[in-house]
């Protein structure tokens, strides 16, 4: 048993790594520059660079000693202006280079330095084979940069990194390992705190939905299976296909409009007492019921034709007792699997229900974050959801192994 648990935990490692790589690729590579998303397309490149430096986005993605900087775009050699006094080419820097190590593909560099505190100016000439490495000291900035003919048609100015592996990916992994999900740009708070505040309301909404949905679903499915082929069974099946086909958006809007606004049976919006949760919970249960009943019915019908049911019937056990004591017990494995797959979503909440009924849970937090491009929050919810999914999966498997020796031995 212990070996089985260890084995399943070890199997989590590659998948977790996969999840981290996937989220990294999605949010850091495909997503483009977070600075531009947050500050807008019209922000100055100096502000963008400051944002990058603050959040570590100025590092290379995976690994590397040098990374590109925003101070200089893609400049062809021919477009540079020649300085009359020195005969060097002036680079169109969009902001003064802060302290750090730099590399440029030219043979001679003249730095126009300025001390930040006093405003004192200085010049420094660096000579050598291209590409040339130079450093700007702490407390100084390089306001101008003149170079002698670059070795390539395009000038490349790069910033040095602290080490080969001082990359965004490594930084990403290490900060996640510390439980640091970054800062929410919208809330100006650590993401972890934003999420912690949302978990409670989400659970208050989702636990009743899951419990109620499972209870009603299994009961209807048992009835269907007991009277399989009857009018009741067919009616429930048709009804569940119909329920399944109603769009989720419609469930929420129609439920709120008809029951809360027109009929005034429930409060419309808010999160003040348990009464505010009744309607969203009802909508949550009904919208998922079609799919649930169909699944549970199929799982139970798999057992109904087994020989032990016939044996029980021959012994004279009553129909209800056969269904509950014999059939239901044996069909618990698929039912529990199905149930456990919903457990991670308990925490991430319900996007629509929470937003439309004003429940301050993780669902509405995530939806707001998506609308305001608050990447850190979206990323954190996605990662947490994925990790929870895996943990619940392992826990379910371990439970099976505990209940059924064939699982851990086979």
């Amino acid at each position, binding site marked *: 048993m212990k070996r089985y648990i260890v084995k399943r935990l070890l199997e989590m490692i590659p*998948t977790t790594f996969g999840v981290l790589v996937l989220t990294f690729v*999605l*949010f850091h590579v*495909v997503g483009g520059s977070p600075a531009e998303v947050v500050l807008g397309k019209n922000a100055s490149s100096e502000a963008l660079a400051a944002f990058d430096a603050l959040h570590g986005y100025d590092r290379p993605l995976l690994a590397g000693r040098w990374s590109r900087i925003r101070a200089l775009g893609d400049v062809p050699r021919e477009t540079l202006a020649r300085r009359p006094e020195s005969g060097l080419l002036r680079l169109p820097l969009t902001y003064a280079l802060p302290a750090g190590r730099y590399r440029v593909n030219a043979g001679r560099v003249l730095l126009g330095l300025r001390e930040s505190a006093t405003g004192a100016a200085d010049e420094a000439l660096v000579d050598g084979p291209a590409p040339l490495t130079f450093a700007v000291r702490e407390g100084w900035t390089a306001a101008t940069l003149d170079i002698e003919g670059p070795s390539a048609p395009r000038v490349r100015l790069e910033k040095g990194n602290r080490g080969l592996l001082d990359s965004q990916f490594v930084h990403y992994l290490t900060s996640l390992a510390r439980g640091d999900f970054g800062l929410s740009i919208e809330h100006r708070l650590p993401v972890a705190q934003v999420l912690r505040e949302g978990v409670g309301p989400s659970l208050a909404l989702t636990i009743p939905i899951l419990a109620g949905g499972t209870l009603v679903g299994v009961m209807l499915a048992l009835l269907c299976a007991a009277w399989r082929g009857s009018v009741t069974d067919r009616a429930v099946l048709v009804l569940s296909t119909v329920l399944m086909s109603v769009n989720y958006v*419609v469930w929420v809007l129609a439920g709120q409009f008809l029951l809360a606004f027109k009929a005034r049976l429930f409060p419309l919006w808010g999160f003040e007492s348990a009464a505010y949760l009744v309607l969203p919970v009802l909508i949550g249960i009904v919208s998922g019921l079609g799919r649930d009943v169909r699944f549970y019915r199929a799982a139970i019908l798999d057992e109904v034709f087994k020989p032990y049911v016939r044996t029980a019937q021959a012994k004279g056990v009553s129909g209800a007792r056969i269904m509950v004591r014999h059939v239901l017990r044996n069909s618990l494995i698929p039912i529990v699997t199905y149930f456990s797959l919903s457990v991670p979503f308990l925490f991430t909440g319900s*996007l629509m229900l929470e937003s439309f009924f004003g429940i301050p849970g993780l669902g509405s937090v995530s939806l707001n974050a998506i609308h305001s491009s608050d990447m850190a929050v979206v990323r954190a919810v996605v990662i947490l*959801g994925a990790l929870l999914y895996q943990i619940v999966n392992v826990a379910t498997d371990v439970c099976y192994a505990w209940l059924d020796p064939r699982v851990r031995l086979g």
Partner: protein
Amino acid sequence: MTASMNIRPNIVGRLWRRWDTRLCLIVILVYAAAAVYGEAVYRTARLTDRTPAYNAVRERSRYVAPAFVRLGAVRARPEDEPLYLLGSDNLGRDVLQRLVQGTRIAFHVGIITSLIAIPLGVLLGCLGGYFGGRTDSVVVWLCATVASMPGLLFILAVAMVVGQGLAGVYLGIGLTTWVSVCRNVRGEVIKHRHRAYVQAAQVLGYRHARLMFRHILPNVTHIILIAFSVRFPASVATEVFISFLGIGVQGEPSWGIMINNARLRLWQGVWWEMTFVTLAIFALVLAFNHVADELRDLLDPALRTEQV
């Protein structure tokens, strides 16, 4: 495809023979025709550079009720006012025309996301199931990774990050839903891998690609057909949700956008836009779901709802 058609020559015929599936097929065909018509309208408007009928704003005809509830008023309407069979919206645009455009977008979503998810799932499933060993481990790992992403939120995140309106939605849905196709195909391929006909072909010295795609794949096409019929309504429903939230299509009348438009007016008693969009989505999704059920019963009774 051809091989499975020879063994089961008459899937469509069998669906057609029953009244309920026949009705569903007719509904789907009507929607498909509407989608083709909508595409034609859309293309002509683009080519001639004119405002298409579904975007034509008429300030004087805002919130006109559907024609069939104002029979007398229809005859007395101004000369230049359209009929508004299903009413007009807040800008005097024809709800029916916009529904047709919504159908066009729904079919785009259903078909394009299938074209992303199904080939990807089939390819990976075939590779994993056929080669087994390390290849299979990689495929299983990929499936497990993507499967553990929190569904809708992940699709939204992909759509948000990719941006570009509908393209982001296609990618978001397509790249997250290939897993079930892959798992089913892989399971079937594993069943077939050691069968006599595959061994016979191996003995003949055929290459792996030929064994996989010419010999095994035709025997698992029913999985692909089922996957398509299940995916289509699901991705349509997802697109409605995403564009309702304002992340997908912009400026085009997707069903989700229409619902979002109609939502606010509903409180003021403008019921028609909401009702007809809801019915339009419902009928298409229901017809597809029912056909998918029957298709599954016909082709593979062992596959249950939850596995596709």
